[in-house]
């Protein structure tokens, strides 16, 4: 076999490996989702979405849980995304490369590895108690925001790094300030990677249970939050709760609730994916 043939063979083998790898991912996803839908889809109806929690599986609903999750996701998004992106921008575009940067950089990836429950303990002390927010949506959102910040920051930095410096040169050359360059040129060019970070971060926030329990998110709450200072529960807690009940009917409820949780995540991600596709299409160096 000539080298060329070998290389082509390797190339086509890799292609199939690639198809295979994607298939693994997709098949597993199909199994998860299929399973859950099989278990829970029939359980979803209007009253499931609009009822309060109950000890009777067939009467129980997830109104407070999904509305709580929605509040939490939205507030976490509002808090974490701007802060995360702006911190990423600062570190990548403004900060001089020195020891401090290095420390910051290591520190941030370090934060990404801190178990979520530790964030819960932090949130309990700082937001619930010190800042007197109580076990409110806001306290929960701040806690989750801290939890997902590292993901957004790191993804933002990488996306910014990938923007060719000739673009910055062109903008600076026209007298744009650093901020103008960042805002008008670099950020839009990096938006794809940033949004991926946001998607992964939001996915993580939506599914978290432990830190919110520590912060004081409730398991039973018979009213939906009316504002950011209200108490709340979230879907993962409800799911967790149901999953650990002995009765099989609750497992079905849990599956149904998972479908709703995935639907919420999917909607949030969908918006981000839409913008990612839209903005990335234009940029092809």
């Amino acid at each position, binding site marked *: 076999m000539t080298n060329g043939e070998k290389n082509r063979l390797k190339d086509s083998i*890799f292609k199939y490996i690639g198809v295979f790898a994607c298939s693994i991912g997709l098949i597993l996803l199909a199994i998860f989702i299929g399973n*859950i839908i099989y278990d829970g889809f029939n359980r979803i109806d209007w009253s499931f979405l609009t009822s309060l929690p109950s000890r009777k599986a067939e009467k129980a609903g997830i109104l407070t849980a999904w509305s709580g999750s929605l509040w939490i996701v939205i507030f976490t998004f509002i808090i974490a995304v701007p802060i995360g992106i702006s*911190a990423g921008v600062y570190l990548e575009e*403004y900060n001089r490369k020195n020891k401090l940067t290095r420390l910051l950089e290591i520190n941030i*990836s370090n934060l990404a590895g*801190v178990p979520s429950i530790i964030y819960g303990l932090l949130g309990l002390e700082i937001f619930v108690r010190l800042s007197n927010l109580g076990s409110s949506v806001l306290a929960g959102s701040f806690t989750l925001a801290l939890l997902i*910040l590292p993901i957004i*920051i790191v993804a933002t930095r990488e996306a910014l790094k*990938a923007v060719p410096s000739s673009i910055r040169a062109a903008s600076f050359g026209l007298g744009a300030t650093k901020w103008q360059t960042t805002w008008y040129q670099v950020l839009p060019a990096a938006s794809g990677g940033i949004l*991926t970070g946001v998607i992964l971060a939001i996915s993580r926030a939506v599914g978290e249970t432990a830190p919110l329990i520590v912060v004081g998110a409730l398991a039973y709450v018979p009213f939906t939050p009316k504002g950011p200072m209200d108490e709340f529960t979230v879907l993962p807690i409800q799911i967790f709760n149901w999953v650990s009940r002995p009765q099989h009917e609750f497992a079905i409820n849990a599956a149904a609730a998972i479908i709703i949780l995935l639907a919420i995540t999917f909607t949030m991600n969908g918006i981000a994916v839409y913008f990612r596709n839209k903005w990335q299409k234009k940029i092809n160096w």
Partner: protein
Amino acid sequence: MQKIKEKIIEFILRATALITILTTIGIIWVLLSESLVFFKEVSIIDFLTDTQWTPLFANKHFGILPLISGTILTTIIAISVSLPIGLTIAIYLSEYAPKKLKKFIKPLLEILAAVPTVVYGFFALMVVTPFLQKLIPEMAGFNSLSAGIVMGIMIIPFISSLSEDALSAVPKSLREASYGMGATKLQTSFKVMIPAASSGIIVSVILAFSRAIGETMIVAIAAGQQPRLTLNPLVPVETITAYIVQVSLGDVQHDSLEYRTIFAAGITLFVFTFILNNISFWIRKKFREEYD
């Protein structure tokens, strides 16, 4: 005027970056204030050298090594699943797949990161373990292998999506240069694209790694909760995170030595990841390729 505006913006940006420092300080404070009390009662030498971790039993041992080995074991298994698969997917999507397919597959795979981890935990326990037991009969019902594999699946999108972004951000002209020399897609990927995107790829791996280290539910459910100093993937182990969540949401009295163990475990994990991150930072610095 412009200048003041710039200053204000820079100030705000810096302030947001400092939030991460404050968070770290907060975490260290939370962990340290309790673990200092802990280390007054338990010698740090025992803590680091004892090979048993039984703080909640009558015969108490406070050796963190079993929890560390459990953490390392599950994390390594997870990474060895997600790194090859994730990277292959990233390369496939950025170099081989039609654009439309990519647009469709990428967000789908990202759902993998959004499935609640409880679901994964039960999947590992109820599906993966029995399946593997058919292949490896001596495998225990709870083990780090299933937990690690499933955790690896969960973090695939961290690697596949972020690396794919990094790869597609490499200027087209480089790809053309390589193709123009008669390189295959595979050669172009490995010799030009991956080196050029290495920074982003490494970061994606670090994030995935961190996610695996910090993951709780999957290991708590599927890996068993037996602190055991072993690197055998077939037997039950306990990770630091599983231990922490077990105790902090359990019925243990707060403000007790038993409860404080979670802070000691937490700070150990913190130091541990700190060392790992330093290493990876160093590697990254060495291999970084600039392009324009």
